[in-house]
């Protein structure tokens, strides 16, 4: 009898366990008219400084620095939205904190603030601050005519948008041309609105025509002459097989300009019509490794000779500072950001290999990313380990080695190496 009772109890427990094994509470599916979410992130890092590098000398010439420089970065990105039927209000502020031995900074940026109406599934209109993210490239987007420059080291980060008005009209067809979408936009610029987009207090206009034609995404893009000169672009993306995608971008910018430091140390302007382009692929191997490979030709990038002259100027300015204590030359060169921006020269190769869940470790993704300047042979190599197995928590450990000879792009960056832990909690 006790044995029977024990069997009954065990059976009851087993049945209860199986009944409760999976549940789906439908109440949690009800849509709310508001949403508040986002993420908080901490990024402690160690930098191995290259004290002889041009960029180090320009940044830290008057500061005593150790070879190893720790820093801490924090970020709070909020997303708040109100949605009622055909109208939506969206706000995305970002609070960024930086603390290193050399500086401490807390900055609030409004990445996106927009109001959108969607009276129909074919049409929507938007007014406000928005990042458009045009282009098909992963690391670079030469056709992103109305966006801020993307950092190829972190191409998936949110970007601050520009204030603009835009609309979308889309139609679908049962033919080789499956979709057509038209996206015109207006972007005003003056001293208080989009002041970093250009100059001239102009109303800028542009647009995009999207086609899904023979299973190929195609965009034709234009930026009218305004605060910046006119530009025309084309991009495409297509899956050639289930595991192989090909994409590309072509941008033609009229009268593209770049500030150039001449051998006398003076800033001049060089340029002309510039054609930039990108060709890339995404390939998934049978072992579940994803390869992203992109070649980028920056039509308005600095030549090897222009970079040599710039580095000569930095060397002279450094020698003057050491001999006389005069820093004006270093300050002037340091103010010119275009020589230190990402992909400042002309030919680059981007490669990222990420292996999904090796050794059956779910949600674990190791990856290796490399960016090579094909003109001077310098490169960065960044191995990383990412783990997303804990709900709403994302952990990433990333190291970066910057390799290059003197007077090469990566050889003159401030760091020889950097290691960073990123802990991101979503809510």
């Amino acid at each position: 009898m006790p044995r029977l009772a024990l069997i009954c109890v065990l059976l009851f427990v087993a049945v209860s366990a199986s009944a409760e094994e999976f549940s789906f509470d439908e109440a949690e599916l009800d849509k709310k008219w508001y949403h508040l979410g986002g993420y908080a992130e901490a990024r402690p890092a160690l930098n191995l400084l290259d004290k002889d590098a041009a960029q180090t000398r320009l940044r830290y010439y008057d500061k005593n620095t150790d070879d190893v420089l720790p820093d801490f970065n924090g970020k709070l990105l909020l997303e708040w939205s109100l949605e009622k039927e055909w109208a939506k209000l969206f706000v995305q502020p970002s609070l960024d904190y930086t603390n290193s031995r050399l500086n401490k900074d807390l900055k609030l940026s409004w990445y996106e603030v927009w109001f959108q109406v969607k009276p129909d599934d074919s049409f929507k209109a938007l007014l406000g601050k928005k990042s458009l993210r045009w282009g098909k490239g992963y690391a670079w987007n030469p056709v992103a005519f109305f966006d801020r420059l993307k950092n190829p080291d972190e191409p998936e980060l949110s970007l601050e948008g520009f204030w603009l008005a835009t609309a979308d009209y889309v139609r679908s067809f049962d033919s080789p041309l499956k979709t057509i979408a038209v996206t015109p936009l207006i972007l005003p610029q003056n001293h208080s609105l989009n002041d970093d987009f250009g100059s001239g207090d102009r109303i800028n206009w542009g647009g995009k025509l999207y086609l899904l034609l023979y299973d190929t995404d195609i965009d034709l893009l234009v930026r009218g002459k305004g605060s910046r000169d006119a530009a025309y672009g084309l991009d495409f993306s297509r899956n050639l097989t289930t595991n192989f995608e090909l994409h590309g971008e072509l941008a033609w910018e009229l009268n593209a300009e770049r500030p150039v430091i001449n051998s006398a140390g003076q800033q001049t302007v060089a340029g002309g019509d510039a054609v930039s382009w990108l060709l890339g692929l995404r390939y998934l191997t049978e072992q579940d490794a994803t390869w992203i490979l992109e070649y980028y030709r920056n039509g308005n990038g600095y030549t090897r000779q222009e970079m040599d002259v710039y580095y000569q100027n930095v060397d002279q300015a450094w020698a003057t500072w050491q001999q006389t204590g005069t820093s004006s030359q270093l300050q002037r060169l340091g103010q010119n950001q275009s020589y230190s921006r990402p992909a400042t020269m002309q030919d680059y190769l981007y490669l990222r290999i990420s292996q999904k869940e090796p050794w059956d470790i779910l949600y674990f993704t190791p990856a290796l990313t490399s960016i090579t300047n094909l003109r001077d042979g310098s490169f960065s190599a960044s191995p990383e380990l990412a783990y997303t197995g804990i709900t709403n928590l994302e952990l990433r450990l990333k190291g970066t080695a910057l390799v290059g000879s003197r007077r090469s792009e990566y050889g003159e960056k401030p760091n020889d190496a950097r290691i960073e832990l990123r802990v991101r909690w979503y809510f």
Partner: protein
Amino acid sequence: MQLIISFIILMLCAVPAFAIDGQQLLKQIDRNLNPESFESYRKLINIEPDGTRKEFTLYSVKKGTDKVASLFLAPASDKGRTTLRLGDNMWLYIPNVGKPVRITSLQSVVGGVFNNADILQLDYDAEYTVEKVEEKGNDYLLHLKAKTKSVAYDRIRLWADRGKKLPNKIECLTEAGMLIKTIYFKDIKDFGGIVRPATVETDSPLYKGYRSVMLYAKLKKRTFKDEVFTLNGMVMLDSLR
């Protein structure tokens, strides 16, 4: 002699009556599984060998044989991610990235045993040809072959209940016949007139000890404009809820 002729005539009439049109049967299984155009909510649970679970909640819409889109509602780290499939074309939209990027059907946006093709499943009839139908007890066993190379699994063995014409089990195989995963259909439930399995489980010899489970809720017929299934529409999927 008369008897023999009558028997032959009878046999000739009887054979077409008993022959099974495999493709028609597959179409019927597709329709019993899902209406042609519908919306649903799904909870996807990945279970590790030590029992650790990770759950995802999705809102999905489907139209016709080749249009399907899904929006992640939970967890917070994945909220707002949207996947779109138009025939062989697949895209993923991640809010941080800010634009749709093309993905492949063999990848998995959630990790675990379900891949993108499982999550954005089209009608089997749209992607597979029925090579052979066998009767196995209470089940039909359909041997399916992919119509094109762009389909995630080259071969499928589908066991379907002969009475309900609903799948019980599906084995997904490579071209060489290697088993990639097995999908089990359980827990038949009435979703307002649509009677279908509410639980879909999968395991794989490639992921020993791991399981993934998909639970269905609020599945109902609904029609959508084609424009919902575009790159412009996929970023607005939440507005359909």
